[in-house]
C-alpha cells in the first residue's frame, strides 16, 4: 500500500446526488481525506483544485500517474504505508 498526497480537481454541484468531491474518487478506489479544507462557500469546481491525502494499492498510484487526466504531476509525494 501507498500513502500519497495528490492535487486533484473538484467535481460535483454540491447537491446530495452530486456532492462536491475530489474527481479521483469516481475513478479510482481509495481511502482519502481532504487536507485543503477549502470553505464550502468558496468551492467552485472549475478551475479550483484541492489536496487530498490518500491510501491505495501501489498499482492504483501507478495507474493514476499513467492517467492523462491526472499524471505524475498530480502526486506531491508518496511513501509506503504503513511506513
Amino acid at each position, binding site marked *: 500500500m501507498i500513502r500519497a498526497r495528490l492535487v486533484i480537481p473538484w467535481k460535483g454541484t454540491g*447537491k446530495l446526488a452530486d456532492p462536491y468531491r475530489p474527481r479521483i*474518487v469516481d475513478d479510482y478506489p481509495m*481511502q482519502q481525506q481532504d487536507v485543503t479544507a477549502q470553505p*464550502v462557500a468558496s468551492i467552485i469546481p472549475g478551475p479550483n483544485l484541492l489536496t487530498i491525502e490518500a491510501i491505495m494499492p501501489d498499482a492504483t498510484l501507478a495507474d493514476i500517474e499513467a492517467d492523462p487526466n491526472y499524471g505524475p504531476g498530480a502526486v506531491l509525494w508518496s511513501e509506503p504505508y504503513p511506513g
Partner: protein
Amino acid sequence: MHADTGISALTGLIPSSGSAVTLVSDTFTDTGGTNLTAHTPDIRPGSNAWVAVAGTIDIQANKAQGENSANQYYSIDAGQADVTISADVTPSATTAGSWGISGRISDASNSWDVTVNASAGSFRLYEHNAGVYTIRASAAVTINNGTAYTLAGQFSGQNVTATINGGNQISYGSATLNQSTTKHGLNVPTAWTADNFKVTNP
C-alpha cells in the same frame, strides 16, 4: 411508549465500557408505526426527546426506519458537542444514495453525515453546510443492501473520525461547522433502518 426507568431517567449519564459515559442510547423498542418524536429513548439527558428536523422516521420491527425518499434528519440533544455517535444502519435498494448517522445537526441544512452508499461502494463523511454537500473523507468499501453496518463518528473540536464496523477509518481535521452544536441523530430514508443508536462521551 418506552418508559425511562431507574437512574438513567434522572441523569442520562451511564458509565459505558472503559471511561466512556453514555449520554443517549436507543434500541427503538416500541410499537410499530410510532414516530420517534413520540418514543422515549432508553437513556437520555433529562427529558430530552427526538426532534423531527426534516422528513419522517418511525419505528418498524423495533428499529428506526425512514419514511421519506428525500433527506430526513431526526436529532436528540445530548448536551455535548464532543461525542462519539454510533448506530447499526441497514441500507436498502429502495432508496439508493448516501445516508446513515449525523452529528452536530443544527437544522435540515447543516450537519456532519457519516454515510454508506451501496451503488457507489463508498463509506463517506459529508459536510452538509447551508444545504451544500461536500465529501470531506471517504473510503472505497463494498456495501450490500440489506446488511447492517455499524457506523460511528467521533467528534472532538475540529476533528471528525468515522469508522464502519470498527475499521476503514476516515477523518477530517477542519470541521468548523457547528462545532458547538450538541444535537446528534439519524439520517435514514425510505426502507433504510437504524438500530442501537448511541451517543457517548468521549
